[in-house]
């Protein structure tokens, strides 16, 4: 049994992991509120971001351009997915469309297996640097850079949603689709925008998780589920809720793994989901905050 002394270390691990769940959850919430679909390709966006970046870096491209290239590729794929499978089938029920995304996720995973194989990829970032020691907590540079990137991405998302007309229109569409449409906002364009944003954010999440946990072709499924749990925990209604849900889930997992045993990490996550769904089907944090976005 670990003592209280390890708590800061667990919290750090939890926040790092949680910040990645937060990004996946934001993607879920954006798409869900604009289209009514739970998009289970969200985790595959992360996987592709990670695998493509690792592949590009292996072939000699620098990390930064490799990342941009990977994000752009994932965004392009999301556009194709939205136009090809989601938008053209928008008359179908949301439940059908959720199955469409599950199918697409399986297909993406299959293709990834063919291209990348089963071997895990590493993304060498700051590997030679020794972890920082801050008040007895050992902070790896990968973890630190992950947190920094998440902060920047979250600030960018908020700038977009709060300060730009496109972002305001997207939020309007999330809050009240009918009223938005009556103002001339095209819901299909907003759906595309939501997919583009979610794909970009998802790919970035994948890139920053790769140096911490390695990248494998099938990492997407678990990330989708964790992102979904985080989004549900946050009330499935707003980006701030999703981010809070992600951080909370990461911390709960880290505490579960640290104090009970690492085998219980995922058990903690799914237990959280069950509790949330039973106690409050519309999420905990959303219910507490009582508002959207």
């Amino acid at each position, binding site marked *: 049994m670990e003592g209280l002394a390890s708590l800061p270390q667990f919290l750090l691990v939890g926040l790092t992991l949680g910040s990645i769940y937060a990004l996946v959850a934001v993607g879920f919430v954006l798409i869900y509120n604009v289209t009514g679909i739970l998009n289970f390709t969200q985790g595959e966006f992360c996987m592709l971001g990670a695998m493509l970046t690792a592949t590009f870096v292996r072939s000699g491209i620098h990390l930064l351009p490799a990342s941009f290239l990977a994000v752009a590729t994932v965004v392009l794929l999301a556009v194709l997915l939205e136009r090809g499978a989601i938008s053209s089938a928008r008359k179908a029920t949301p439940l059908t469309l959720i199955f469409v995304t599950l199918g697409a996720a399986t297909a993406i995973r299959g293709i990834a297996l063919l291209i990348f194989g089963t071997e895990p990829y590493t993304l060498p970032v700051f590997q030679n640097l020794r972890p920082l020691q801050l008040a007895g907590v050992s902070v790896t540079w990968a973890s630190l850079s992950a947190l920094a990137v998440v902060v920047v991405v979250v600030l960018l998302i908020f700038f977009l949603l709060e300060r730009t007309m496109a972002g305001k229109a997207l*939020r309007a569409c999330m809050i009240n689709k009918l009223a938005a449409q*009556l103002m001339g906002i095209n*819901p299909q364009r907003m759906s595309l925008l939501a997919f583009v944003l979610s794909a970009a954010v998802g790919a970035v999440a994948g890139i920053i998780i790769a140096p911490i946990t390695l990248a494998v072709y099938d990492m997407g499924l678990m990330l989708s589920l964790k992102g979904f749990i985080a989004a549900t925990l946050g009330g499935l209604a707003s980006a701030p809720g999703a981010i809070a849900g992600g951080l909370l889930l990461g911390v709960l997992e880290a505490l579960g793994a640290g104090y009970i045993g690492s085998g219980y990490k995922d058990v903690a996550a799914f237990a959280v989901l069950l509790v949330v769904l039973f106690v409050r089907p519309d999420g905990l944090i959303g219910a507490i905050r009582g508002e959207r976005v």
Partner: protein
Amino acid sequence: MLTVNGLQVAHGAIKVLHGLNISVEQGEIVAVIGANGAGKSTMLGAIAGIYRPSGGQIVYCGRNVAGQPAEILVKQGIVLVPERRQVFAALSVYDNLLLGAYHRYRSEKHLLPAEISRILEMFTVLKGREKQAAGTLSGGMQQMLVIGRAMMAKPKLLLLDEPSLGLAPLIVREITQLVRSLREQGMTVIVVEQNVRAGLEMADRGYVLERGLVVIDGAAEELLVDCRVQNAYLGRK
């Protein structure tokens, strides 16, 4: 300006409008009154492009616009204020007004701050609340906000669905004044009301709708004293 000809609209298997005819001249305020479920909102929704008609024509400025989507019709000047004050609750009053001008944001971006100030002059209850979340406003203020938001879209034909619903008499009077002042600005308005007296007091002309058909029409003052209207809707005094 608008001629609705034999309009038929169904929600799934339920036919709601069975060949509705109304017409509206430029600069007129027309009230459409009728009981719960008569099909008033369905009519406005079809004109604004939310519901696709299964038959009939909606001729607006000389062109049949039946079946065009709402986001296109807004650009042509048909703007609907739907029932139940659909504000963007989590967004500020200012952003709600700004989004009213969404369809002309690109070309007229620089004009919008001044226009928003003008709207706030007109709706003085909203002044000083620009940063407040729209969902925290009172019902009357929300109604003013959605009308102001619609005006930011520069409508030629404004469609108001039950603007007085659930509001105190004093506020209903304010809304009535407001709609009348819209006529002075040369706007054409169709206002749907269950509150028959309020509706007719706003309007020049009125239609009475029953089960998807026009049963009575005429000048608003005449309808206010029409015995059929009085019996059925006003409760004879």
